[in-house]
């Protein structure tokens, strides 16, 4: 039953979006984590999404109508979490306790406004996946009443 797969697909979408929300939370939480050296400073993290199955060109008739569930693994997954390569913010704050010998402090390369928009986008996508799952649930429940 193809509709059962919808749950797996939307579930994978939901978990991918929640990873994205997690990285956003981590980025915003560390937005002001100052440090005295470039190497130790926190860098913005982003998840890289990829489709689970390579995209097919054709489906055979039998595949389309009677495909066993295992063969049609679809959905989205998080391939990796990468660190942003944007330059760190260097501020001259000689009085700061983390200042280095030259009086500079390094701040993470995080733009909080950017992170907030990313968060809204992620939560919207999450919502869409929930709605898809809900609709599929209604469809399946309807099927259970067949013949009644």
């Amino acid at each position, binding site marked *: 039953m193809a509709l059962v797969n919808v749950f797996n697909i939307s579930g994978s979408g939901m978990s991918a979006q929640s990873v*994205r929300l997690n990285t956003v939370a981590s980025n915003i939480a560390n937005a002001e984590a100052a440090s005295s050296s470039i190497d130790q400073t926190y860098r913005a993290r982003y998840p890289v999404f990829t489709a689970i199955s390579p995209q097919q060109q054709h489906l055979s008739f039998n595949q389309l*109508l009677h495909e066993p569930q295992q063969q049609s693994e*679809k959905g*989205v997954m998080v391939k990796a979490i990468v660190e942003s390569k944007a330059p760190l913010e260097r501020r001259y704050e000689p009085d700061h306790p983390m200042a280095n010998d030259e009086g500079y402090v390094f701040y993470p390369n995080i733009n909080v406004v950017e992170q907030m928009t990313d968060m809204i986008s992620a939560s919207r*996508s999450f919502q869409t*996946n929930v709605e898809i799952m809900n*609709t*599929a649930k209604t*469809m399946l429940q309807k099927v259970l009443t067949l013949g009644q």
Partner: protein
Amino acid sequence: MAIGFDQALGVHPQALLLRGKRAELLADNLANSDTPGFKARDIDFKQVLNRVNEQQTGKKLPLQQTHQDHLAGLSQKQDVDLLYRIPIQPAIDGNTVDTQQEYAIYARNAMDYQSSFEFLNSKFKGLIKVIKGQ
């Protein structure tokens, strides 16, 4: 006169399965709405259902292939094309999923699924009436 399920139910069970499969494809599109380079896919429902119908009603006789080198014949083209959606506006990351459009199509497909189900259900109800002799 024997009543076969295939004759009594018509094309509706296949339509229901096909709608379910399409829901899966559309859900995949929506799950990948943030995947870079992902191309939204869909099937031409009408074309696929027509082919099912042709096979079922025997309008086109299937050729039996007894050897792998035999030509398939016109009616045996068994592949269903997964078509690409044409995007309304391009995205920087090459993704062609338009969430709103995709969601609208999904909702429409769900409604069509329900109506296919109603047809199938009424067919069954009819059969039950026949069996009971009411």
